[in-house]
């Protein structure tokens, strides 16, 4: 049995819509703004329409059931029904749409903004492009001392950072739920694994207030750590973050 082309088009649209919902809402559990879904479906609908009206025969076949509904006297009852329901449905949708919305405004922010080339940290101007973790080289040169530094980083982390970023470095510390934006998850491949150690140093030492405007510094609850930790402690914590998660920092070499 051949499926009418109008029904085919409707099925394609429904399939795309539910596919989107299944993939993003159910499987990925991502919060996709309704406005984005609307825009996406607009383009899909336009695309489907173009494909289904590729030539005249196809177009005719597509609109045939609609034409028949309106013009065929035998389908009068159905036509009257559709003509009554459609305006009412549009009216209802308009009414709902016009109700004042109480959804909080969306706050789009860049999570990892581009770093400045230099920043003032611990009272001196630091060139972030050339900055390296002074302890990193010990990983090969003196593994024992390196291990000690990692352990010291662990102590600094547990004493200072785990309240928000969590014992497991997964951004689920005991106070994470009370913060917005929520603390970063370092286990995730999208955070420290994508960054250089100098970037982490900049983000830790200058904290939320050190962010550029596109990253909304006014809502970040990351403290300004140069007020609380020494330079060495910050580098040690950075060693610990990579050691615990098993991620490697990005570097200019080997890329």
């Amino acid at each position, binding site marked *: 049995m051949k499926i009418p082309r109008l029904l085919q088009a409707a099925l394609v649209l429904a399939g795309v819509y539910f596919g989107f919902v299944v993939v993003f809402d159910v499987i990925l559990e991502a919060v996709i703004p309704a406005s984005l879904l609307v825009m996406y479906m607009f383009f899909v609908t336009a695309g489907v329409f173009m494909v289904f009206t590729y030539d005249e025969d196809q177009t005719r076949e597509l609109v045939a059931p609609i034409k028949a509904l309106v013009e065929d*006297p035998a389908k009068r009852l159905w036509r009257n029904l559709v003509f009554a329901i*459609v305006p009412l449905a549009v009216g209802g*949708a308009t*009414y709902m749409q016009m109700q004042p919305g109480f*959804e909080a405004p969306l706050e789009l922010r860049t999570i990892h903004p581009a770093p400045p080339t230099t920043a003032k940290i611990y009272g001196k101007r630091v060139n972030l492009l050339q900055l390296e973790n002074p302890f990193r080289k010990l990983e090969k040169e003196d593994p024992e001392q390196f291990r000690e530094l990692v352990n010291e980083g662990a102590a600094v982390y547990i004493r200072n950072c785990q309240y928000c970023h969590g*014992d497991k470095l997964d951004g689920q510390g005991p106070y994470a739920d009370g913060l*917005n934006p929520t603390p970063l998850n370092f286990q995730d491949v999208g955070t420290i694994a994508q960054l250089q150690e100098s970037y982490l140093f900049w983000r830790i030492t200058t904290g939320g207030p050190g962010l550029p405007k596109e990253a909304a510094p006014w809502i970040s609850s990351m403290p300004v750590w140069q007020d609380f930790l020494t330079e060495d402690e910050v580098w040690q914590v950075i060693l610990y973050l990579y050691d615990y998660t098993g991620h490697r920092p990005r570097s200019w070499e080997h890329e």
Partner: protein
Amino acid sequence: MMAGGLMKRILAPAIAAGLLALCSGPVSAQSAAQNGDAEKGETVYIKRCLQCHGDEGDGLGPAAERLNPPPRDFTLGLYKIKSSAFDADLPNDEDLFRMVRDGMPGTAMPGWSDLLSEQEIRDVIAYIKSFAELEGTPEGQVDYGTRVQTSPESIAAGDKLFHADDRCSECHGETGKGDAIKKLKNDNGERTWPRNLTKPWTFRASNDPKDIFARISAGIPTTQMPSFADPKSSKKLSIEERWHVANYVAALAKTEMVVRPENTVIQAARVEGELPAAPDDPVWKTAPPSTFFMVPQIVGKSRFFTTANDTVSVRALYNDKQIAIHLEWDDRTRSIPGDDKARSIADAELSEDAIAVQFPMTIPRGMEKPYFLMGDAAKPVNLWRWSSGTTEAPERITMLDATGIAAQEARDAAATSVAAKGSYKAGTWRVVMTRPLRTETVDRDLQFEEGQFIPIAFFAWDGSNSESGTSHGMTTWYWLLLKPTAGAKPAISALIAVFLIGGILLWWGRGAAARNAGRAS
């Protein structure tokens, strides 16, 4: 003592194991297979647990004094959450397994099921037990009997038992908020506070009646929570009675006051006539509360880690002239500096209890807001700070302009017509703050506007928990919305849409009919 200990530690488990093997072969075989390997557990411990619990297992990791509760000291071999009998020294391995796998809500202990396999958890438990040389299985279990399902009758029975002879209310308070005035200490001599039973997210196991039943039956070792299954106890309860109490306690969770993460907007409804200025005015019950988590102020100098309060519930109403904000939060003690009784309960020097609401000085037109922690130099904030009063001074409201946590300037609150009234009852503070929607000091005070999303944040101080100055709880920015009345606009638009679409369809249908008629003739 020696002989008794030996009897308990070695003989009893052996007998129990023998009995188990006799009555339930497959189960005991399974538990043998589940036994952990302490040596392998040590590797897991070093990587995952040592940072908080310490390399000696004594709970003295680097964060110990910043955590409340502190990490468990494994060398004592005592565990709070257990389902073995009240007089059994040991917890069940299953109890420890659950705590490691699922974590303990309201503490820094996370659930480890995503990073550790079941076997690794069993191994680490074997290692943890070795700190106190715990061996074998406990000599008795909590007898759950037949579970009494929750029902209004069971809850009512539990309510009676909870309060009879002050059985539970002696410590947990009349309404279960842990506000009774009994000073409690744990075995270490440290001050402990009874659980606020209306906050289920702070229950270390869960607030499922079965877990509550186990706590009531086995008690909570190292604390003053006793066993109500102990036949020697004058407040002893039968199994059925304990189920009633468990059902009652589970029902104390106030779902209306639970944090819903998606709820970031306090919706203020418009009312005709006067706003309720009294905190206990029944009108407030009609406004839905928005509850937010409060976290300790650990961002700015000086950091403070152990706040007493973890939530605040907010309601708001407005009329054509004024706005009223109703704040409600639980506090076990009313802190009155100068009052001897209050000081003796608090066991510390007292400050006033206080709460503050923060607004930007002007409604932001773009995304940019003032820094959430009391503003910044470019974007100052208003703080309406209420404090509870001392024996000498009554409660009062202060208006502060702030450009940072250490940069606040007090202003005459009366000049901006901000007013506040507080009331303390059964472990709960309720405070109402009111202000005219508009003031004459347009450049220094927020001017409220209908339909605008206005950033709002909160700060709270518990005076009997050494909270004052920069030591306090806080929230990040949320929103306050003065809900505009929709008016006739949606209805009119809907009517226009109906007529427009209806008209087009009618025109189309008629055209088709005319063409048909033309063809027919």
